[in-house]
């Protein structure tokens, strides 16, 4: 089961990162967004091609006020 931002999700193995972003209402042009899967950066250029494995842990991050 794929974990998205710390919570179980209905994302299915084999889906692309881009698809996950759509789940979150984000398109590929979304500014200020970055994605990590299993503790590794997934560059924007790979959002389409990167397929999520079983039990992938996905972090989708963006800017927040801070520091």
């Amino acid at each position, binding site marked *: 089961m794929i974990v998205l931002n710390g919570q179980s999700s209905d994302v299915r193995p084999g889906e692309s990162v881009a698809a996950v972003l759509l789940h979150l209402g984000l398109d590929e042009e979304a500014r*200020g967004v*970055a994605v990590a899967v299993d503790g590794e950066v997934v560059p924007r250029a790979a959002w389409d091609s990167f397929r999520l494995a079983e039990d992938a842990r996905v972090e989708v991050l963006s800017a927040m006020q801070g520091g």
Partner: protein
Amino acid sequence: MPDSLSPQLDAASTPAAETLSIAGRAMRSRLLLGTGGFPSLEVLSEAIAASGSELVTVALRRVDPRARGSLLDVLAEAGVEVLPNTAGCHTARDAVLTARLAREAFATDWVKLEVIGDEDTLLPDAPELLRAAEELVDDGFVVLPYTNDDPVLARRLADAGCAAVMPLGSPIGSGMGIRNPYNLSLIRDAVDVPVILDAGVGTASDATLAMELGCDAVMAASAIARAEDPVRMARAMRAAVEAGHLARAAGRIPRRRYATASTPDAGLADFT
């Protein structure tokens, strides 16, 4: 250098550089602003304008579908550069990964590096911080590390290639100002890169003192964002940084144990 006990006494008069230069980027403002803790984006926007800051920090957090993008819009409208931080990271690994994600998200290789070693004080973890800095410098980042006030660690961070060092005055958000001015002046002597006071600033005089001690800039977050009147405090900090920067360059008078008459007795009348 004078064998002085009083850090400011070492504030030898130096030409007040017109601009602050970090990693080749020139800025007119010597005040960095944190974006956290403001009551609203409107107040943040006003405070940025009042502060004159050209470089503001942002954090990276999980996407919140409810409030997306507008922060970056506000910063873009304000015409300021974004400095991502690694707030909340407790290991070199997490900090490095966060920096790389920030590079993806904000298309900048600048990072305010934070590696926290304690939950109560949010003080940095020296060995982990140095490790993360070395790794990020190797990876091409412009690294501005949030460090403690240890002159030796500051020098090692500078030697590792950091673009500036950001020593604390006191813990983040504590408002306790500069607990050890002596160490700040030693850091000023120890490194050639810009020294930016980070953390602990509570009010304007803290910022003025920091500049007099030889800091090249001051970072303020809670001191402005959580003040009763953030916009007014932003104006105060802007003036405070300018005052301290000018005062150091103007060459202060020495401290003396006894008085020195500002009105000479010569020509004093005798009414007896």
